[in-house]
């Protein structure tokens, strides 16, 4: 066979150049900057002074940061323990053999995740209004004893955020679970049925082990996403909310960096967040390794 013309050596580098240039300029460089900035105090992007570890020291004793961390963790718990089970439940319902209209239902459940967080914030902000809001009016119509003056956005900040996030993300996660469920081999299910396994046993011992990689992946994504929560409370509450009950880590970062103007302290918050997210990812990796080994 005649040897074909060798590719010019620089071709792959040419194809990768947009990625390599932008990752250097807009990712690697800012990362280095962020590292340096976290040891500085700044006033806007122009002036700064070195403060050593003061930002991190202050961060660890900053009650507002701990409040933000607690709020964010609470929201993440809502995502993992309420949202994901609901998503999985819906996916199991949609995966029933012989079901008609699967694509139709999937479309409806998925639709909210196309609505941007800003717009969800605006919509739910009005829906949670005391007297005129949809939520209180509906609840009052269904349960006469329900107080239509119930102050969601003043008294129940985190539940409001979790409910809005439920509407937004349940269908999104469901799509992943459904795709995983549809990959579970038909024969496995039949064999289990023949062995006399009930629905719960089939789920626990056949379905769950099969979809576990996707479940763990979606859980990780959900945790990472929850810990970066910003736009939803920022719009829905118009800020940190009463008594900072809706303050999240990223909202605190935004406020210190872009309202107060201390980009240095904001960078320190950013590294703290990266550390938290990194540990989640690390735990997930270790767990995956252990699963593969066993």
């Amino acid at each position, binding site marked *: 066979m005649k040897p074909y013309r060798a590719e010019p050596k620089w071709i792959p580098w040419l194809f990768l150049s947009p990625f390599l240039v*932008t990752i250097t300029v807009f*990712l690697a460089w800012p990362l280095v900057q962020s590292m340096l900035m976290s040891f500085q105090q700044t006033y806007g992007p122009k002036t700064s002074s070195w403060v050593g570890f003061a930002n991190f020291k202050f961060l660890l004793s900053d009650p507002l940061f701990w409040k933000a961390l607690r709020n964010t963790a609470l929201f993440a718990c809502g995502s993992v323990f309420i949202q994901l089970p609901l998503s999985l439940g819906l996916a199991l319902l949609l995966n029933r053999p012989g079901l008609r209209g699967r694509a139709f239902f999937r479309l409806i459940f998925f639709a909210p995740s196309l609505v941007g967080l800003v*717009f969800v914030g605006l919509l739910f902000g009005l829906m949670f209004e005391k007297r005129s809001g949809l939520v209180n009016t509906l609840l009052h119509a269904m349960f006469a004893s329900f107080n239509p003056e119930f102050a969601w956005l003043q008294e129940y900040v985190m539940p409001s955020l979790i409910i809005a996030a439920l509407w937004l993300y349940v269908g999104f996660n469901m799509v992943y679970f459904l795709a995983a469920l549809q990959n579970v081999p038909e024969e496995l299910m039949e064999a289990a049925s023949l062995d006399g396994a009930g629905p719960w046993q089939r789920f626990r011992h056949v379905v769950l082990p099969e979809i576990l990689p996707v479940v763990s992946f979606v859980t990780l994504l959900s945790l990472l996403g929850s810990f970066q929560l910003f*736009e939803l409370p920022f719009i829905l509450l118009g800020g940190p909310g009463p008594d900072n009950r809706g303050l999240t880590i990223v909202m605190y970062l935004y406020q210190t960096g872009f309202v107060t103007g201390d980009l240095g302290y904001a960078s320190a918050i950013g590294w703290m967040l990266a550390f938290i997210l990194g540990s989640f990812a690390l735990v997930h990796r270790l767990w995956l390794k252990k699963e593969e080994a066993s």
Partner: protein
Amino acid sequence: MSTPALTLARRKSLMLIPVYGMLVFFAIITLIPFAWLLCAAFKSNTDFFSSLFLPTGDGFLGVDWGRLTLGNFKKLFTEIGIGNAIMNSVFLASTMALIATFCSALGGYALAKFRFPGRDWVLALVFGALVIPGPLLLAPGYKLIYQLGLLDTYAGLILPAIAPAFGIFLFRQAMMNAVPTTLIESARIDGAGEIRIFFTIVLPLVRPMIGAYLMITFLGTWNNFIGPQIIMQSSDLFPLSVAINQLRGLYGVDYGMIMAGTLVSIAPVLSLFLLLQKEFIAGLTAGAVKG
């Protein structure tokens, strides 16, 4: 003879009735906020407070259709000039989608189908970039955009995102599965140049991923808030997300108009998705489920 099988089939479909019941229940809950938004956008401010969905009356279906109004939209387009923000969003989202998809396909192709020294190193960079949380880059990214003199320009929004690691990763997966190496090699034997191979052979083979990624980027840009909120300063350059949020500060009590603005902002992406949902969902789950 066939009766036992028939009753079994019938029993199976009877067992699905509670499943349908639950699905319909959740579907209604999902749709109610959309319905409320749609109604609120067409109501005057007095009707917004006096009726939950549509104003009641003696018209068709017990609704007073005459009370519905286009006033909110008129005000949005004439007084607020929302048309400008729509054009800004359309421009930003489609530009970003086209550029990011093209650059991601190029990069993904290079990583999937070429052997060259340093490839593993670049691949590690892609995975490294994937795990960097966005908020970490907010403060230094803002400073960089300021130093480059790109504050309040679209370049400041577009340039950082022309070749996202996520896109490179998705296209690399797609290229490895859908593009046979032998096809590329035989094209080379026939004397086709690398660039021509990319455009005429490789791109058509990953058309589903192109569609999905165009949509993912379009949607992401359309809904992006924090980027333009930090970088853009002139209100005539604001995309919808920032412009609509400003509305609430300036016209906080004008609920009908805010809902009309929200409707105008989400309707285009919802209808686009209705047309392309299959490709979109396939693209979204491709990386997660196959891997």
